[in-house]
């Protein structure tokens, strides 16, 4: 269980123009507070700056203005307190599944026995038992992302940043991954910031969905998801789920249209 609050205040990002081109405003001043243990989904059309916002929280990108702080401590760069899973497959190809999961633990200098014990726990939780000694290139896309999730969780971060982690997976695998993630979150209640453009995914997982506008991005709507946890996949067929989905769809359609014209 996390106990630190993430505070994003007036974060703006402008990308400098190339040559004579005008600079691009990717993210309008954005403020957001994420309480410990929340599961917040950021929903938006492609290119709206939602990944930029997540990268700033991760410390992989610097805001042009504004600040990010985790429990009052300003974020100045990447760190193990903010674990991240990327859309692209980022397992280290030269490390086996088990060594990938131990990467952050090795970095911290934990004794090897402890590293192995922690890795074993997350191998079990993500259903990778039997694949510990496989190379990443021998795994399917879904398994690679499960391993990436295990690697981030094994490091025990305060907050988990997920940047469309299931975006490259086929629909069925994606749904299984959502259930796996939900199961883990329901057990651990770690703070999650989840970027996606999939409405179903956002409603199914999150307790709060933020809708971002087309570029330059800003948070244009906030929708609480009052569906009780633990959630099962069957929740997707309930009228409550349908109503939330319809509402978010209306919000986002407009933005997608704007993004398509721009």
């Amino acid at each position, binding site marked *: 269980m996390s106990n630190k609050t993430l505070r994003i205040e007036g974060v703006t990002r402008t990308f400098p123009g190339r040559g004579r081109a005008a600079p691009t405003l990717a993210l309008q001043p954005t403020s957001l507070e994420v309480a410990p243990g929340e599961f917040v989904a950021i929903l938006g059309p492609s290119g709206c700056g939602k990944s930029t916002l997540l990268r700033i929280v*991760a*410390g*992989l990108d610097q805001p042009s203005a504004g600040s990010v702080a985790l429990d009052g401590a300003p974020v100045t*760069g*990447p*760190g*193990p307190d*903010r*674990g*991240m899973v*990327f859309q*692209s497959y*980022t397992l*280290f*190809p*030269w*490390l086996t599944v088990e060594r990938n999961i131990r*990467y*952050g633990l090795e*970095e*911290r200098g934990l004794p090897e026995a402890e590293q192995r014990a922690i890795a074993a726990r997350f191998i079990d939780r993500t259903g990778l038992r039997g694949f510990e000694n496989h*190379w*990443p*290139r021998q795994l399917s896309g879904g398994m690679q992302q499960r391993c*990436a999730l295990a*690697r*981030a969780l094994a*490091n025990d971060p305060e907050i988990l*940043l997920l940047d469309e982690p299931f975006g490259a997976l086929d629909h069925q695998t994606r749904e299984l991954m959502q259930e796996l993630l939900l199961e883990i979150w329901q057990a651990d209640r770690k703070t999650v910031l989840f970027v996606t453009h999939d409405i179903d995914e956002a409603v199914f997982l999150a307790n709060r969905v933020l809708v971002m506008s087309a570029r330059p991005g800003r948070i244009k709507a906030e929708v609480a998801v009052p569906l009780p946890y633990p959630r099962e996949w069957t929740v997707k067929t309930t009228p409550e789920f349908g109503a939330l989905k319809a509402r978010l769809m209306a919000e986002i359609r407009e933005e997608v249209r704007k993004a398509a014209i721009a």
Partner: protein
Amino acid sequence: MQPLKPVSPGARLVLGAGFFAVFLGAWAFVTYGGHVPALFLASPGRTLSSGWSLLTEYGFLGDIAVTVFRVVGGFLIAAVMAVPLGLLMGAFKPVEAFFEPFFSFCRYLPASAFIPLLILWAGVGEAQKLSVIVIGSVFQLVIMVAVVAGATRPDLVEAAATLGSRPVSILRRVVIPAAAPQIAETLRLVLGWAWTYVIVAELIGASSGIGHMIMDSQRLLDTGQMIFGIVVIGVIGLVTDFAVKSLNRWLFPWAAL
């Protein structure tokens, strides 16, 4: 034949050996057929017998050993200098900005042009031979290693950073392992070039080595010996190439080389 359709291993072997056969056939045809004077081009048989006498009577194995020693020695010195620097340049852009222009300039300096200078500085001993190879390989290697290291996937570097790795640790745990297979391939390539430099170095001011033997044979108009010397270099090259390739496959089982 379909574009890009792979060929079976057996067919690959037959085709590869086939061209050697065609080449030998053409050689035999022009020499045994009397289309070329024997003075200018020895026949395959003549070449083999010259080679045999070289090996048994003139101690050519010693020459081969000396040349191999020079190639490997010079190449190792170049690699020990170039690989760490190339890695630093690839990983840290200010380091690259500092060295890259100068090394790009040096890369175009022909190693053979240094031979007269090197004879002045280092005499005609081993130091001079090794220097030629080092000069010929080191700048190429630095630039190529820097390019390989610089091509490390940025998302892997970012993933490592979010797992708590600091810059030095990222270099050690991400950039180096990510670049290692390509660096090994680069070393294999440049080792081949080192063979060119050693022969050039041995053509001038040497008293031993394959190049020296070739030079001596020219004075005696023994084209058989000259061709045998060149073929030996080719065979050694082919064998090392094959060995290094297998070594790389064994060292980097995770990469689909």
